[in-house]
Structure formats: structure tokens, C-alpha cells
């Protein structure tokens, strides 16, 4: 049985169908990418999964628990993590404090325990040197990594990443790919990645789902998706097959 399962999820905004009967299933430790043109409903799908938007129809299950209408913080405590499109670390807290907020997901941990857990995550993601720094002193890429650390400190079983490579330079993207690969190897976290950087998607994803105008138009392995005619015309472009990203 899959760890995270969305069935026939639908969401309308007025006359616009942001999502129509979309299914998504993510197994334990699996890496799934969701791609599609802007406005295809990718972020809406993440918002439905995290409870920031309630769907008009369909169900969302996490390890068998029906959380379709559950509050966001309860989903997070149940093992769902997420980062945002442009990175949203808490600006008035230091790097370490940001990550400690995540580690406090389990009640009853001492301050010392929280600190040690947060430091362990920062260490793993290569941010330990910046632990005491205020957020505003960090580069954009580092801020996004802080947010990722905060999400990881919540010990998610499924991590949803909303365009984590947007705004990063190519060296940072390479680093991000390495860290994500490492994470999966160590912790068996399932990852759902929304991304426009096709190089990154094709390197990481085991399975790709393609959305267009709120509908799923294709799903399959990277090589299947790269040669799918519907995907090529809707998103990747006919030239993609030959360009070889």
C-alpha cells in the first residue's frame, strides 16, 4: 500500500478547474516528480496535500489515515513535510532556532535535545557553520536550505518540495541534487518534487507525473515521459527529444 495517496482530488476556483480528479500515489522511500506548465495545478496539488487548500472532492490518505480535512499542523505531525516555492524561513529567528522549531514536533523534548537534533540536521545539510546567523545575513540559496532543514527536523516520511531549485545557480543545484540523493539513501524519505529544472527531475525522479490544465496527462518513468507525445506537445516541446538535457 502506498504511503501517501490522493484519489480523484478536485478543486475549482470559480469557473476554473485547478485540479480535476487527479490521483497521486507515493510509496515509502519513492521519488516522484510532478511537472507541467505554469498554472497546471502543481502548487494547488501540494496545497491540497498539505491542507492549506481544502479540495472540493476526493480524498487524501497518509499511511491509511484519511486526512482530507485535517488541519495542516496535524498532517505535519503525522509525517508530512513541505518546503515553499520561494523559501519561507522565520526571519526573526536564527538559523538554529528555525530548525529547532521543526524539531519541537514531538512534545516533551528538552531544549538540549532540540538543539542537538537541529544541529545534527544542519550538519548533515552542510549549514552547521551558519547555525547562529540571523536569516537575513544568508544568501537566497542558503535561506532555502534552512527551510529544507526545518522541514527535515520535523522528521517527515513524505517530503513535498515546491520548486527547490528555482533561483539557485547550477553549482547550488548540483549540491541540492547530491543532498537529496543522500537523504533518500539514509532515511528512506519519500519525496514529491515539483520542478521546472528538467535536468534535475530526470536525474532524481523514479516516476514522473505530468499535469496540464488541472488534469493528469501522463505518468511514468523519466524515459517514458520524455518520449510521450502528449507531454512533448503540452510542456517539454518537440525539440526536447533531440536537445538531450
Amino acid at each position: 500500500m502506498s504511503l501517501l495517496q490522493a484519489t480523484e482530488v478536485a478543486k475549482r476556483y470559480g469557473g476554473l478547474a485547478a485540479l480535476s480528479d487527479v490521483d497521486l500515489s507515493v510509496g515509502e522511500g519513492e521519488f516522484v516528480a510532478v511537472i507541467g506548465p505554469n498554472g497546471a495545478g502543481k502548487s494547488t496539488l501540494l496545497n491540497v496535500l498539505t491542507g492549506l487548500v481544502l479540495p472540493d472532492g476526493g480524498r487524501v490518505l497518509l499511511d491509511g489515515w484519511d486526512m482530507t480535512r485535517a488541519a495542516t499542523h496535524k498532517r505535519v505531525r503525522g509525517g508530512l513535510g513541505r518546503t515553499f516555492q520561494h523559501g519561507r524561513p522565520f526571519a526573526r529567528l536564527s538559523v538554529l532556532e528555525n530548525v529547532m522549531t521543526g524539531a519541537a514536533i514531538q512534545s516533551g523534548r528538552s531544549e538540549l535535545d532540540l538543539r542537538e537534533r537541529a544541529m545534527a540536521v544542519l550538519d548533515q545539510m552542510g549549514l552547521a557553520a551558519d547555525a547562529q546567523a540571523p536569516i537575513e545575513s544568508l544568501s537566497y540559496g542558503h535561506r532555502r536550505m534552512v527551510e529544507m532543514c526545518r522541514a527535515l527536523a520535523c522528521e517527515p516520511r513524505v517530503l513535498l518540495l515546491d520548486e527547490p531549485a528555482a533561483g539557485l545557480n547550477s553549482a547550488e543545484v548540483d549540491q541540492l541534487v547530491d543532498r537529496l540523493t543522500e537523504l533518500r539513501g539514509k532515511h528512506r524519505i519519500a519525496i514529491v518534487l515539483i520542478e521546472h529544472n528538467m535536468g534535475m527531475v530526470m536525474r532524481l525522479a523514479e516516476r514522473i507525473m505530468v499535469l496540464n490544465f488541472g488534469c493528469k496527462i501522463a505518468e511514468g518513468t523519466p524515459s517514458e515521459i520524455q518520449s510521450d507525445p502528449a507531454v512533448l506537445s503540452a510542456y517539454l516541446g518537440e525539440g526536447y527529444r533531440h536537445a538531450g538535457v
Partner: protein
Amino acid sequence: MSIRFPLLLGAFILIAGLGLSMMLADYHLRLLNLAVISAIAVIGLNFAFGYAGLISLGHAAFVGAGAYGVALLTTLLAWSPWLALPAAVAGTALLAMLIGVPLLRLKGHYLALATLGFNVCFSIVAANWIEVTGGTNGISRIPELQIAGHALGNERSYLWFALVVLAASATVAALIHASRHGRAMIAVRDDETASSMTGIDVPRAKLAAFLLSSVYAAVAGGLFACHMRFISPEDFNYAHSITYLAMLVVGGEGSIVGAILGALLVTFLPEWLRFLGSAYLAFFGLFVLAILIFLPSGLAGIRRPASFSRDGRIKTLALVGASREARQ
């Protein structure tokens, strides 16, 4: 921040206050008492506004609830003030819970207006429910506090007591600030969506901040009632709420030290500038403006990067304008 800072803060308050209490004359001791009591209320407001970002313009009503609680229990029911104080604080917390649950669904300026409305309601009830509150005549003959048979009758001995309460309040506040609960409140002000995505129960964190702020307000109110031994609705009208907010902004929102400095400065400034006469209000307005422009994180921000609370600047300008109007 470790446990050292909260304890040092408490100790510093006691030592500095003790020193001052030996040097000052009676009139200034009275002002210092009022400043210390305000400081406790402002440390409370800091939980709601400074940490959780809840603009409360009804803080004086909670101070009033604590004060009226103590006054009624001691005069009508002849309770000991020591029993009346915790009972009044608990009652105020309950009141804050009852109005907090519906009101905290509102955000920003809507919450500010709703809490302001609550404060106005409080004043109207206190002024018109004559059988209980004595109306605008207020409640007099509130018994004085006694410690081991020693009445805290004069300003100096009362100040010592108030200082102990302030030191304890500040220490507890600093401990909460450095805990997961403090971080959760600060996170909620920064970004509610990201907070819930970090497992924080946002409505609960807001309610906790609001309750804490009302508890500190009630403690301040109880101390005020026992100090003045006479209270009336005027002591708790909405202009006082705005003054508390001005104290917090001048001192530095989000900072406990700032809350105390702000309460001291805004209490003493009118005395130091008495020679200005009616021009004082204009000066005070300019002074607060200067602080907002040059020290946007308040007096406490002198040792912190000024950009820490940039976002508070524009909102508070409007509030300070309102403060001046309300005082006139």
C-alpha cells in the same frame, strides 16, 4: 539564550530597583511604583504583540479586570488580598479565553479594532454597573497588602514588593521566550502558513500568547489596585491600552528589557519635561517618531541590529498618532 540570561535579568531588576528605592524621594517612588506596575503589563503585551504579532488595543481592559477582581473580592467579599490576587488573575485568564477564541480568528487591523471595542465595552460596564462597580465613583478602601503582619503601607516598601513581582515576571517571560513556546509565537508572527507547516498549532499559539498577556495584565491590575487602594473606570480606558502599546514600541517590541525600559521612560518623561507645559504632547509625539525612524527596534534595539523589526514601523506610526489624540 540559556537559563543564565533570565536569572541575570531578574537579579539586575532587583538590584537596580533596590538602589533606586534608596535614593529617590516619596513622590518619585510613587512614580516608580506605577512604572514597575506598567512594566509588568507591558511585558505581558509583548507576548501578544511583540512575539505573536497580535495587535491588542484592549490590554487596559485586562489590567482593569485584574484590578476590579481584586477590589471586588476584597471589599464585597472581604477576602484577603493574597487570595483575591490569584483568583482575579485566574478570572481574567478565563475572560481572555472567552473573548480570545472568537476574536483571534480576526487578523491585523480587524483584531486591533475588535480588542479596542472590547476595551470600550469594559469601560462602559465598569462605569454603569453601579451596584457592583460603584460606577464612575469607583471602588475605594481596598485593603493594603500585608506581609507577615507588616503592612506595605508606604511607597518604598510597596516598591520592594512590586520589584520582586516584576523580577519574577521578567524571568518567567525570558524563560518562555527561550523555549519552544516562545519560538512558536515568534514563528506565527513571521509566517502563519510556514508555522503550521512546521507542526505548530497556529490558533493555539495565538491563544497562548493572548492568555499570557492577559495574565500579566491582571497581575499588574491587582498590584495597581492594592497600591492605589482606589480604582475607577478611567484608570482602564482605551487610552491606557494605547499608552501600553507606545511603551512597548518605544522600548522595543519583542524585547523584555525593552518593555521595562519603555514603561519607565514613558512614565517618567512627562515629569522630566514638565517645563514644556502643554507642548509636552507635541514633544512626545516627535520623540516617538524619532525612535521609530532612528531606532525601529526601540531602545532595546541599540544593541541589536536595527532591521530586526522593520515591518513594525508603519503600523505603529498610526498607533502613536492615535495615542496622542487619546491623551488629549
